[in-house]
């Protein structure tokens, strides 16, 4: 840099001149030159260390063996290491215990959204509220077909559920059907008539829905006297449910209402424990496990916390 001449009259030029302005031969500052060469060196080292030169198939690998997918996996391992203490504790706890532990419950609510989105939201909606008219049960109200306690939710998730209302098209006259449709709608609004109740009992509806019409969670028979509709409160839709039933194989127009099993093995285990037996005696080796037991517990707590859990 010290060889830099500021006086243009002392510096040789390249011979290029425009209107008296000469192109001088002052070299660029040395730090600048050094920086340029260092940059070049950096590029060279980078090319050697990292994947860089594109080839026909793939590219050069680089000495470090770095790839984006490896970096992603490393990041994944990091987050899993953060979650590990929680996940390990979850594995040891029952769903009920998780529910009662503030810290673990908050962890589950925060971390289960994706699991719920992948496995449940397609039918039950992101916030536990399915698309109106889609015919899937609402998860965030206080009306439960098979029970809203945390244990019942675990059971439902593990073993799945299926509605079982028989088709009545061949059992009822046109007039009786009309009257029952009206009765069901009235019952929901608390305006059912004596005549309606009489017909309800005569036709045997009480067997599943109960003498008071409040349903039976053992069977998954819905409560007819509340404001919540399992399918729809429109007269035509109510008529379809009565005439064609739910999951009645003999009727092609029947409604389909099946909750798939997400961990049959866990369902069998719970059943065995209920009877005080060794689960190993119950397994037949065909049980599916779409989700792990811990995942089932997490989802149960997540669903329970939608607002309707009992």
């Amino acid at each position, binding site marked *: 840099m010290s060889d*830099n001449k500021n*006086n243009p009259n002392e510096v040789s030029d390249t011979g290029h001149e425009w*209107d008296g302005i000469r192109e001088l031969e002052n070299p660029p500052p040395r730090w600048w030159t050094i920086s340029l060469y260092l940059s070049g060196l950096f590029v060279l080292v980078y090319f050697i260390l990292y994947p860089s030169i594109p080839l026909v198939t793939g590219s050069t690998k680089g000495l470090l063996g770095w790839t984006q997918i490896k970096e992603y996996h490393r990041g994944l391992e990091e987050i899993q290491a953060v979650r590990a203490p929680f996940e390990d504790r979850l594995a040891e706890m029952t769903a009920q215990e998780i529910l009662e532990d503030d810290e673990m419950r908050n962890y589950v609510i925060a971390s289960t959204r994706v699991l719920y989105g992948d496995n449940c939201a397609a039918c039950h909606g992101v916030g536990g509220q399915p698309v109106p008219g889609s015919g899937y049960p609402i998860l965030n109200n206080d009306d439960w077909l098979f029970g809203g306690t945390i244990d019942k939710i675990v059971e439902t998730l593990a073993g799945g559920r299926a509605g079982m209302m028989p088709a009545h098209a061949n059992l009822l006259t046109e007039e009786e059907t009309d009257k029952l449709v009206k009765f069901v709608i009235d019952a929901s609004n608390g305006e059912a008539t004596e005549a309606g109740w009489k017909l309800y009992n005569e036709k045997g509806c009480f067997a599943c829905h109960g003498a008071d019409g409040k349903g039976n969670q053992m069977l998954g028979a819905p409560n007819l006297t509340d*404001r*919540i509709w399992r399918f729809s409160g429109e007269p035509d839709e109510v008529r379809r449910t009565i005439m064609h039933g739910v999951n009645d194989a003999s009727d092609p127009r029947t409604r389909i209402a099946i909750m798939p099993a997400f961990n049959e093995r866990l369902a069998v285990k719970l059943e065995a424990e209920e009877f005080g037996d060794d689960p190993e005696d119950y397994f037949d080796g065909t049980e599916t496990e779409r989700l792990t037991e811990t995942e089932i517990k997490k989802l149960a707590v997540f669903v329970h*916390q939608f607002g309707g859990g009992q």
Partner: protein
Amino acid sequence: MTDPENKSSISTIDIYEDVSDWDVNAGGNKVVAKRMTGRFRNLKWFGMSVWLIYFLGPYVRWDGQQAVLFDIPNRQFHFFNVTVYPQDIWMLSLTLLFFAILLAAVTSIAGRVFCGYFCFQTVWTDVYTWIETRLEGDTPQKAMKFKSAPLSAEKIGRITLKHSLWLIIAMLTGLSFAAWFTDAFQLWKDYFTLQAAMPAWIVLAMFTAGTYVFAGFMREQVCFWLCPYARLQSVMYDQDTLLPAYDAERGEPRGKLKKGQLDSGKGSCIDCRMCVAVCPTGIDIRKGQQEGCITCGMCIDACDTIMEKTNQPKGLVRYASYKELHHNHDSAPVFKRPRVMIYGLILMISFGGVVYGFMNLSPTEFHVVPERQPLFVQLSDGSIQNKYTLRLLNKTQHPIEVQYRISGLEGATLHGLDDLVHIEPGRINQLTAFVRVEEDAVNQAISPLVFTADVINGPDIQIRYESMFMGPN
């Protein structure tokens, strides 16, 4: 009349002549500034001493804790007995605004005061060069003599001592920086037992290297070619700005003393080049205002000393505005300069904001977030239920017990928040709550609803959050 071609070539030559007079300081010649005593030298020492706070501040204790601590892992800023959380970050913005405008205001009034007296580059460079001149000579001639002297034990000793002192200062600089972000005493232990955390080592390494290279080797080159402030501040000048300036009218034509006497017919400047010798950035103030000038006033001290010796009035080089030098009238008073007044207004607003923020620092932070998907749910008895997430941050130093309640909506009942909630200091408590209203009572899609958290065990704090209740139709 000259022909156009000729005219153009004449002006080109003029430019070349002009250029030959320029001196671009690209670091080719090391600046060895002579040190002299004087008013501005004292002022500079005073400005520099402010940086002692940087080195000593972390050891100040308050209530048994570090008085000022930027606790990044815990997202807390402790300032004596006040703890500031990220939620109050707007105060930091106002503080930064205050100092940015302060820089502009000061620059507008008296030039690059920051550069000359406070800037860490200036201050550290001054300390480094002070060490260097002590060991290797305080004039360019002595420095050159030292450099060209044959290698001897003494020379090696002096060079080693210089670099050792530089490195110690550099490491102290890095350590002190890190000490603001973690417990200072623990940090010393961690460094000496090699147990410090990785960020602490990185900070130490970067600050040590940065200080050593910038203050030891690059010096005024940083001001010339790296510092954005230097360029920014220069455009904040106007004709009223006070700057160290050479009174050319009085000084020119300059002439050397003849037989120890002033040369008659010449100006006050005796061309002793003292002003150049003392300049830490190696400029000649007599060439007028230029980018290299950090307005430190060393040339004023130097020239005043010479003026005294030659029995002339002081102030040939002095703080003077452009107006004073070129139009012979004083610069306008501060309150008549719109630019300064506007700066002042912003300063007052931002300072007032920070004061207001500290006075009204809320002891808690409360948010209620209504569930959006779905907005509401109908329950089996027909009532409408809304779901809320409540977040309450306890910014006090003590645990608090909180009881929640709602108001503002007829017939609304709160569910899921019956128990008292215990919140540790510095922690956020997050809870889910449900509010139910009878179907008939919901007569509009959105109704206002107020959540209140009553602190049971502590000071009477009103914690309210105005939220809303969503219903059908």
